[in-house]
């Protein structure tokens, strides 16, 4: 009896002392772990990023700007923008169509379809480029036909676009499918029952719900499209001023030992990466998007 009566009085200070170490570690452990994590972060992420800008400006602003406005660099920039301008809308339309079919309907083979959509994530970009060579090259499946009709895909802009579309294929679909699955189909069904057309339902009911997820997928697609190197490198043929994208232009300059120029062009791509991260972070911090994503994971 005595012991029981004494318990509440004893428990309070005991809890105060015990709860803290339960949800966190001693200060020295915390500090060590933070220091280790920050050391890794600095060494592997921050330092390479800094290196790009420092190396780019090593020979001063004049050299930096000259590298950016040089005709081959401008041509590469134009081609990079063109490839992204084609790849992003194509994969956006695909992603929306795939997400609608997968999230709003049930059918056999859905798991297999999702696996196949992920395929470009795990296929080496170089192997993807090789596939295009085997299709459209001189001795490829369509090689003879293309030659007879004087259509050039390989070592030309269409090949670069196809390679870019391949490597950025899953991003929008991968982002939208879980979001639209988490939402269910009740809202859309209500709209359709009330007489809205399928298109109108999508435009006014589905799209507002997933717009941030859509934008998220688009910026990831765009970043990868503008930065792709391996797949594009295989199909480009490296014709200066004609079939070189910005990353390929960086490679050419670097291999010619024009390091400052290579890093100057690279710094443009690094800026693009930073803008991508800022937009991505801003979307992630939106409450509605975060809640939807959390919902889609369970």
């Amino acid at each position, binding site marked *: 009896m005595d012991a029981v009566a004494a318990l509440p009085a004893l428990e309070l200070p005991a809890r105060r002392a015990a709860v803290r170490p339960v949800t966190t570690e001693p200060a020295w452990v915390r500090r060590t772990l933070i220091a280790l994590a920050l050391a890794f972060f600095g060494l592997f992420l921050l330092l390479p990023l800094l290196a790009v800008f420092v190396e780019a400006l090593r020979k001063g602003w004049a050299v930096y700007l000259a590298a950016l406005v040089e005709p081959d660099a401008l041509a590469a920039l134009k081609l990079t923008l063109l490839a992204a301008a084609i790849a992003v809308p194509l994969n956006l339309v695909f992603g929306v169509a795939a997400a609608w079919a997968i999230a709003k309907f049930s059918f056999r083979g859905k798991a297999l379809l999702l696996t196949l959509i992920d395929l470009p994530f795990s296929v080496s970009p170089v*192997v993807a480029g090789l596939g295009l060579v085997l299709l459209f090259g001189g001795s490829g499946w369509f090689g003879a036909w293309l030659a007879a009709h004087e259509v050039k895909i390989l070592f030309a802009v269409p090949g670069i676009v196809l390679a870019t*579309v391949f490597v950025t294929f899953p991003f929008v679909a991968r982002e939208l499918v879980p979001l639209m699955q988490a939402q269910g189909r009740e809202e859309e069904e209500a709209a359709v029952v009330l007489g809205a057309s399928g298109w109108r339902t999508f435009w006014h009911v589905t799209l507002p719900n997933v717009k941030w997820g859509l934008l998220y997928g688009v910026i990831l697609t765009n970043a990868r499209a503008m930065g792709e190197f391996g797949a594009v490198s295989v199909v480009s043929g490296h014709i200066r001023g004609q079939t070189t994208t910005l990353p390929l232009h960086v490679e050419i300059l670097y291999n010619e030992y024009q390091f400052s120029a290579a890093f100057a062009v690279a710094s443009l791509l690094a800026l693009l990466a930073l803008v991508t991260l800022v937009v991505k972070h801003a979307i992630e911090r939106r409450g509605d998007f975060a809640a939807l994503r959390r919902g889609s994971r369970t």
Partner: protein
Amino acid sequence: MAVHTGVLPGFRLTLGYTLFYLSLIVLLPVAAVFGKTLELGWGEFVDVVSNPRVLAAYRLSFGAALAAAAIDAVFGLLLAWVLVRYSFPGKRLVDALIDLPFALPTAVAGIALTALYAPNGWLGGWLAALGVKVAFTPLGILVALVFIGIPFVVRTVQPVLEEFEPEFEEAAASLGASRWQVFRHVILPHVLPATVTGFALAFARAVGEYGSVIFIAGNIPFVSEIVPLLIIGQLEQYNEAGATAIATVMLVISFTLLLVINALQAWAARRGGKEQ
């Protein structure tokens, strides 16, 4: 289950378009690689893939990818833990920049890492004084692959840690477990599926990585020549058959990894679901 169309329209159109576009963009090039391999015949295929230089490249690509993914698993878990559990100055910047390897073009990463680790580079000079050579050796490849893979682990583990209820830790502690025991027996089993998934994703990406590696690798046959570079080398010599045979092995492994990752994600989802 049979096709459930319900009242919503557009099933045939969207699924049809999805299958058409998937076949055209992804399946056709992949099929071309397999098709070309079938033309080769078994003997020729084995000849190419069992060439010592090719075998050395496979060993290097898979070994380096495995080691890099393991390093990423450890430091990815650490970064996720620190970002979820602790507060420190600059935390938001760190959190945002974790995705840098996703956003930074691989060629840019490649030349930046080379500038750091080359013998006359920022870190290379210090390391050379210690007798460690990073750039133009397999160690350089490892550095590039660790960079490429780190966000995969952090971003798969982070949400799992965020949703982990402290009640489990409190229960374990109230039963007398030390902090280390709580971590080892309560937290670690919970985040293990996500960590392994992140490891597999980082590994799959690292095996096929090209852009960030070729600048820092030095590309010396038998020493620092990765498989994707070998494929490009074969293509440049107009040896499509050789390139295809080497690539087919990579593709088969990619497919296997994809299936393993799917199974891992299902495992992680089941683990997460149980605790809900």
